[in-house]
């Protein structure tokens, strides 16, 4: 089946004064073309590290120890992102051109000393051989598309003159302006108020439908996952515990950790009752053991509990 990204056995170490921390410990999953894949996990699960690996943004003291990320663009031959040399021209083409990224903090993700127009148009100038006027024009169109009004004036304004939600729209425009094949969103709504979050989520969902690119969405919020994702990867302490479609994972979670996570969310349905905690759901079982990943007939990877592994399937 058609996967635009295939992550296999990815391992990342962070060397600190205390010792080596294994931020990723053999992570494998697929990102199907034209769909939204969400990686969900709590802090320390390694979900952001995974996203940064795809962009090759891991900096010392972090280091990719092993594994591969096979990228299959719609044109040209597939290649492994991990093994690209630092000076490989494909790396430059990749960052911002084929794959682009939206970060968590809209307040600090834009340089305070350049205008919005400058920073969005720069993304075009970095990847396409067009004049400044063309870049400016296309940047304007993209900003209109993400819902920035009064554009003639706003192009010349500085990020600090924008609200948080507006800034995140600008960052999204900046990421989409080169029409990337993959859009990575690293907790893009965590720093926003719930009403603004809803607006931004709707925007991302609509743009994805419209442009048809593949999205890798990093979040800790299962509500956001439910609303946006087609596929879900559940991570915990640097490992993938469960993979499946959004309905499989959220409605019939198999891994006890996922079950615990879902039950720990407070809500009206269980008002007055005690909330379940991971411990109460998992008990003494070792929740760091991932369920084996299985390739289904349609080529998708999913995880199944060991006892239910279908015979004959080629397991990963």
């Amino acid at each position, binding site marked *: 089946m058609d996967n635009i990204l295939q992550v296999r056995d990815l391992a990342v170490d962070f060397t600190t004064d205390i010792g080596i921390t294994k931020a990723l410990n053999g992570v494998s999953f697929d990102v199907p073309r034209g769909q939204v894949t969400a990686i969900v996990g709590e802090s*320390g699960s390694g979900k952001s590290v995974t996203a940064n690996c795809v962009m090759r943004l891991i900096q010392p003291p972090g280091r990719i120890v092993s594994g591969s990320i096979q990228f299959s663009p719609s044109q040209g031959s597939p290649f492994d992102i991990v093994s690209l040399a630092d000076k490989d021209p494909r790396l430059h083409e990749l960052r911002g051109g084929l794959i682009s990224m939206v970060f968590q903090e809209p307040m600090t993700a834009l340089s305070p000393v350049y205008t919005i127009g400058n920073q969005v148009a720069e993304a075009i100038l970095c990847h396409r051989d067009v004049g400044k006027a063309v870049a400016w024009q296309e940047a304007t169109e993209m900003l209109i598309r993400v819902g920035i009004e009064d554009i003639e004036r706003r192009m010349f304004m500085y990020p600090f003159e924008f609200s948080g939600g507006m800034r995140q729209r600008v960052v999204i425009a900046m990421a989409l302006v080169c029409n990337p094949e993959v859009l990575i969103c690293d907790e893009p709504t965590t720093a926003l108020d719930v009403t603004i979050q809803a607006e931004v989520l709707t925007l991302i969902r609509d743009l994805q439908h419209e442009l048809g690119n593949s999205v890798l969405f990093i979040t800790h919020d299962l509500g956001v996952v439910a609303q946006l994702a087609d596929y879900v990867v559940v991570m915990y302490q640097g490992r993938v515990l469960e993979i499946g479609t959004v309905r499989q994972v959220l409605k019939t979670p198999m891994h006890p950790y996922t079950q615990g996570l879902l039950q720990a969310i407070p809500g009206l349905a269980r008002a007055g009752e005690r909330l379940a905690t991971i411990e109460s759901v998992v008990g003494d079982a070792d929740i760091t053991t991932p369920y084996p990943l299985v390739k289904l007939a349609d080529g998708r990877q999913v995880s199944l509990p060991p006892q239910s592994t279908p015979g004959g399937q080629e397991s990963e």
Partner: protein
Amino acid sequence: MNDVSIDTGLATATPRQLAWQRFKRHRLALASGIFLLLIYTLAFVCEFIVPYKTDTRNVQAINAPPMSVRFFDMEGNFHLRPFVYGYDMKVNDDTWMREYTDNPDKLYPLRFFTRGESYRFWGFFEFDHHLFVAGQGGYVHLFGTDQLGRDLFSRVFYGARVSLSIGVVGVVMTLVLGVLFGGLAGYLGGLMDRAVQRMIEVLQSLPTLPLWMALSASLPVEWSSIRVYFGVTIILSLFGWTTLARQVRGRFLALREEEFVVAARLIGAGKLRVIFRHMLPSFASHIITTATLAVPGMILGETALSFLGIGLRPPVVSWGVLMQQAQNYQVIVMTPWLLLPGLFVVLTVMAFNLMGDGLRDAADPYSTGGQS
């Protein structure tokens, strides 16, 4: 917020122990600290360390170059006891300069922990033992001598006592002024804050050296050495406190809003308790760092003023006073060893800067506290 606690060794370590561990990792900072400890100790007991007093003249050695300590004599024989050669002086017929060479007949062994010139230790009690002296009625000038035949090695360490202490005394005064004004501005705010801010702005926009010069020049000539010493120190700290005051004020304002300080107020802690139990410990490390980094400025200031002849004055010996002898290039070309006090200034100032850097890194309680 990783829900995994750090291994138990670090868990019970006090913040001070953690800071010490971080500081120890800075090899250069640690080495600088040891160097400073050493040189301050030597300066403290300089009467004992050096063979001569500051005004002892050796008329056989005027403007004589540094001697080297030897174990092998000119015939290549090994001597268990280190020794120096005395000078052989000859006046150059063309330049009329004294030129010195080693005299193999004057072999002076060094004797350790033995009697030499008597001195009053810190002016209090009479003593006559020295770390080393030259035996057999000879003399030893490890750093050479000046135009009056005074031993530069001895003078450098006496000078260290004055120059190094001026750094510390000056910084203490700076601290008092800085913490006082900064604290007042930060705590009282309003009019006081604006007044202090304005004062700092004015003081910082004055070129310090000319102003130091003007103030030093106004110290009466008839003042005793000790009064001049304190006069110069006060002048140096008068313009140095602004940086510290700014920092104290800034930290004060920031800390006042910190959640743990608000928490302390909400459990009913009084003002004094909030300040001394919660706020001061949090910026004590910053104050120590700033103070360490401020000492070099004081030492350099004293050196510059004394060098110009308007700071400390002979017979007081300080590094700046010593450098004053090397004011023009004729002197330097003939007797370059008179620049040696400068080397001590450079080393000391470097050591303070390096140690300050190390302290600054160690001061932050969470720099490796376990969060990303």
